């Protein structure tokens, strides 16, 4: 083969050692941490991938579901599945009750005043679209302004672009400080008499930064603007109090907080929701239907057309029970530890550049990063194929942010309360092996 100039590589590489296998188990004396305690609740984590123990570090994309939630879903379909809000019979009554109880659980979880302020949607993206296409289209006029940031998720940019185009409103984007967090001073400077809405992330899925939403909301209200909080990366990880924040709208998705996919939440202050026209039309959201017109239900049902994701809502309720049982403050405290650990270990790998604030200020337990000279896709391919470590690579639905940072793509490791420091170690070992391979 050498004669053909094609080059010849040894047919068998050196035997592969999975990083997860080699990291030492915790000393028996150490008290079990949240990650150890909860691990048995997540059977999906107990598998091998490409011959290595799975190390799942892609929680910002989606979380795993505990047995309690899985059982609840199965239970629903096995025992009392029925359509809600109509029907008198026993199954329907039970399903309706469970569905509305789930709604109340969500209200309690974020400290909403009443269940009427909780609209079930398909996900956070749909929730933002709902606000944009109802409140946005009916409120925004030509020349009005909406403030976003360069770090927003596409779901908190694109709906506003569409609505801005339809209404003639304009969008303004806050940029970042040198520290790679939201530039709050710049944000304040962007307000004018025409500013109607500020729509911002609470926690950034790429930078890991946490924004001072309470201050921002107060400032916005002082200037006559409403605020929508994208809480997708905060609600799953910490206590979020919508009344404490005084948020006008707040959105999050079930699947990032141990709940099933297919259900999300729009929180809206009652008077805001009351004034909004319907989003999708159809059954459930009506009061009376005639041939030439219809009257609409009150919120929240006004915004829930058609048969809802009943099982999923109940599953979300179960997820909330599970998380509340662990205690959101406990979860948060544990993740602060993990976050520091992840940041410190990752930043000590040479050639690594982590985006977002340094770990001094509090960071979410995620790190988007690049390694000099190695494409993040190559990195994540190798991590997965050779070590069973699951991270994400790409633009994480924040293309404008990546452009702002001057990069095309990044890799991202994101943790949740069922991860452990051992897994972080495994990730770092795997990363070192990967870097060695590609250098």
């Amino acid at each position, binding site marked *: *083969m050498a004669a*053909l100039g*094609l080059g*010849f*590589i040894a047919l068998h590489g050196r035997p592969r050692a999975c990083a997860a296998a080699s990291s030492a188990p915790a000393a028996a004396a150490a008290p079990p941490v949240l990650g150890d305690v909860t691990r048995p609740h997540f059977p999906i984590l107990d598998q091998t991938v490409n011959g290595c123990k799975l190390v799942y570090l892609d929680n910002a994309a989606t979380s795993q579901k505990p047995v309690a939630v899985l059982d609840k879903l199965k239970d629903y379909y096995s025992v009392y599945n029925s359509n809600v809000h109509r029907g008198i019979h026993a199954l329907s009554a039970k399903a309706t009750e469970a569905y509305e109880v789930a709604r109340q659980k969500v209200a309690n979880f974020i400290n909403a005043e009443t269940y009427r302020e909780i609209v079930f949607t398909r996900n956070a993206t749909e929730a933002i679209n709902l606000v944009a296409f109802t409140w946005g289209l009916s409120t925004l006029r030509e020349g009005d302004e909406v403030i976003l940031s360069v770090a927003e998720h596409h779901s908190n940019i694109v709906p506003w672009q569409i609505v801005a185009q339809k209404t003639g409103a304009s969008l303004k984007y806050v940029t970042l400080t040198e520290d790679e967090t939201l530039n709050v001073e710049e944000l304040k400077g962007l307000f004018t008499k025409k500013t109607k809405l500020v729509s911002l992330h609470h926690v950034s899925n790429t930078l890991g930064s946490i924004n001072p939403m309470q201050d921002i909301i107060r400032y916005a209200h002082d200037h006559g603007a409403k605020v929508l909080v994208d809480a997708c990366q905060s609600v799953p990880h910490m206590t979020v109090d919508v009344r404490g924040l005084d948020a006008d709208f707040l959105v999050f998705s079930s699947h990032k907080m141990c709940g099933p996919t297919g259900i999300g939440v729009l929180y809206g202050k009652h008077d805001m929701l009351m004034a909004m026209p319907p989003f999708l039309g159809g059954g459930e959201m009506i009061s009376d239907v005639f041939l030439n017109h219809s009257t609409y239900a009150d919120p929240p049902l006004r915004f829930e057309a058609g048969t809802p994701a009943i099982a999923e809502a109940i599953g979300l309720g179960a997820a909330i029970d599970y998380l509340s049982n662990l205690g959101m403050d406990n979860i948060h405290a544990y993740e602060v530890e993990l976050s520091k650990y992840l940041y410190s270990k990752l930043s000590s790998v040479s050639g690594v550049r982590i985006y977002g604030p340094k770990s001094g200020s509090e960071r979410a337990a995620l790190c988007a990063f690049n390694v000099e000279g*190695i494409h993040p896709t190559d990195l994540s391919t190798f991590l997965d*194929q050779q070590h069973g470590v699951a991270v994400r690579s790409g633009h994480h639905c924040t293309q404008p942010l990546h452009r702002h940072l001057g990069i095309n793509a990044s890799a991202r490791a994101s943790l949740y309360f069922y991860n452990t420091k051992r897994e972080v170690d495994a990730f770092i070992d795997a990363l070192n092996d990967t870097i060695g391979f590609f250098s």
Partner: protein
Amino acid sequence: MEAARHFQGSWLCVGDWPAPGKRAALLRVSAAPSPLGGVSLSAIAASSRSAKVFRVNCTAAAAAAGEQLEEEVLPDKLREIVSLFAAVRDQRAAYEQLMHYAKRLPPLPDEHRTDANKVVGCVSRVWVRAYLGDHGKVLYEADSDSILTKGLAALLVEGLSGSRPREIIRLTPAFFHMLGLKQSLTPARTSGFYNMFRLMQKKALEMEMDSSAGSSPATAAVLASPKESDDARSAATPAAPAASAATRSPSTIAESSPPASSRSVAIEKKLQEALAPTVLEVEDVSHQHAGHAAVRGTTGGETHFNVKVVAAEFEGQSVVKRHRRVYQLLEDELKSGLHALSIVAKAPSELG
């Protein structure tokens, strides 16, 4: 009919794929460009199980039709690379091999990193450039910001450079399997690899077209239609390729522009005389294809037609036979600038 003879033996399998056990209707198009045949078969690459079935059906159908399904011949260099990779057992070694190739690939100068050279649908950025070398052989250059992707590109560059355009165009993506890399590549990367390959084929085709004087082959019309999309989509419309692929401009010799009387009329006349149809509809849809590369250089439109014909003669005949009959009757048209025929041929008993 130089080009026609060369493309002979390329089969397009149309029909219900990938339904095992169901015979695909085989449409033999004398000048069907291989990229189209490649499209059908490339759907195969997406799923090796249905691939096997589909190919078996095509082979069986071909045998039944008394024709031979041509065996795929890989260019020498590509064949060597394929066997090299097929021999690698360990995944890590496979990556090392890819990196080895990547490192050998010289960087692509900035001026060639254009949109026209960019491969769509890759997880990283990839550019491919093609140019003609000595003796009408195609040479490729490529680059990527991901080293594994660069390795894949290098593999294709080394495997395909130095071949003639036609050799490259005839290839199907079947060789992907043989590399044995599928386990080591995510579906996203595999589809990126496929897109790289398709872009290289497209560029080879462009060279083939440029080097033929005058009329442009129908192949470009085929490529211009949205079949370069990924496997999932190309799977959904097997009939569509048949329609627009049922074309050829066999001639590399520039013919004079069609006679003053409308081609529509000519087509109608010929079909009327030969088939005595009960229904005959001929529709000039050339305007829909006005932008296509294939049409460039042809004067007066009249390049794409929809033909619906219902004739007693078709009773009991297979779709293949019917279409062949229509082509036969319109041979002269096809030689003189008619690029595409979309044919619906029914027997009177089949009218719903």
